[in-house]
């Protein structure tokens, strides 16, 4: 009996594996003592977030608000209502106009639905692309032949390049301050003295996990600050450089 009660601690800390979590949730349904304790400990644990306070990147706000604008909210869970007898609308002349309105609404609703379906397909395609990128990123990070090189960024921060020759790809982890709202960080692969762009971050973005393909010919990876949108060739100075060979 007391054995399962002690899971309340790990439970509120999200420190149970899935099967134990399920078991404990089952237990919670029947144990008022644990349910009350979990509520209080939950509240306690949430206070630990106070100690994690950190300034969010400015882009987060814009991204979240944009995502919210296109995200549909779920309706409140309503108690089940008793179904009423359907009213016979055809007996009331005034109801006819209502019926016509409903028909129009249904047609418009159909069009909206089609648009939503399309948007859903688009989102799915985007999500799939993101999944693929994530899978490739993980493949590079866990590759047997992966090498890890880190360099300071002039002015503060670090850049790490995890490169896998067998996958001819690298993952760049950038952790530095924002270059300013109108500027962007750009990565360069250097072959001898010839630079090739390896990607531009969004304007103002200072942290990133960035996947680059076709890195085997490169001798070094460089980082510069460019005008928003990036440049065709690097603007000096190069603020971080990591040898790739």
């Amino acid at each position, binding site marked *: 009996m007391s054995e399962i009660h002690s899971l309340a601690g790990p439970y509120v800390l999200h420190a149970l594996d899935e099967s134990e979590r399920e078991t404990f949730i089952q237990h919670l349904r029947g144990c008022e003592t644990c349910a009350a304790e979990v509520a209080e400990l939950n509240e306690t644990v*949430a206070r630990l977030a106070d100690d*994690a306070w950190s*300034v969010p990147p400015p882009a987060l706000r814009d991204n979240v608000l944009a995502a919210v604008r296109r995200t549909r*909210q779920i309706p409140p869970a309503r108690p089940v209502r008793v179904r009423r007898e359907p009213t016979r609308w055809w007996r009331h002349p005034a109801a006819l106009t209502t019926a016509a309105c409903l028909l129009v609404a249904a047609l418009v609703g159909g069009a909206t639905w089609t648009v939503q379906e399309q948007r859903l397909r688009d989102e799915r395609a985007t999500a799939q692309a993101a999944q693929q990128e994530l899978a490739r990123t993980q493949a590079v990070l866990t590759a047997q032949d992966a090498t890890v090189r880190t360099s300071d960024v002039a002015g503060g921060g670090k850049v790490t390049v995890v490169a896998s020759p067998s996958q001819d790809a690298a993952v760049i982890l950038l952790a530095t*301050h924002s270059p300013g709202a109108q500027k962007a960080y750009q990565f360069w692969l250097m072959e001898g003295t010839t630079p090739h762009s390896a990607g531009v971050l969004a304007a103002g973005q200072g942290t990133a996990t960035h996947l680059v393909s076709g890195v085997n010919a490169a001798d070094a990876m460089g980082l510069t600050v460019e005008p928003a949108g990036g440049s065709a060739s690097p603007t000096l100075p190069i603020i971080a450089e990591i040898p790739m060979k």
Partner: protein
Amino acid sequence: MNGDEQPYQRPDRLSSVPDVAPPADAETLLRAVARGDEAAFTRLYELVAPRVYGLARRVVRDPAQAEEVAQEALVEVWRTASRFDPARGSATAWVFTITHRRAVDRVRSEQAALDRVQRMAPEATQTPADEVVEQATARLQRQQVRRCIKTLTDLQREAITLAYYGGYTYQQVAQLLGAGLPTVKTRMRDGLIRLRDCLGVEVSA
């Protein structure tokens, strides 16, 4: 005090502390959010985002991933706001529970990859230049939590912080601390109870 003190005058406005915005109450905001109020969501964002992002960052460590986790969590707050039940806890606790759960899920799915990178490049994902100005209230809350964490025994403290900030399961925590499973789960629980009493946490049901 000097001699030519002015007689007391009633202030024009009641808000006599100009720097502090009227305290937005998370629960009121969340209820408005549940009705689709985007302006209320923006205010709720201002209120919780530093802790949501900070928590995500502390748990997943990689800043880019922390940003993703924070975004996922905040959008989930918007999407599921109607399911918030004040009888079961505070609005902020609800938000941070969602955030922590998301962060932990992320860490567990990426554990292998992250372990590898962090083992080889320990400083690569550490805090860059964002140690910026803190709000006075946030600092105060932080101090209170830190003070209370100090009242725990070493084992209680390590078990709780490894699980919460590290995203480890209690089995992993037991391994890391070289302690038995029953000990670790008990220490988590009685540590949290001590923390609860120190912080004076109550649930008004």
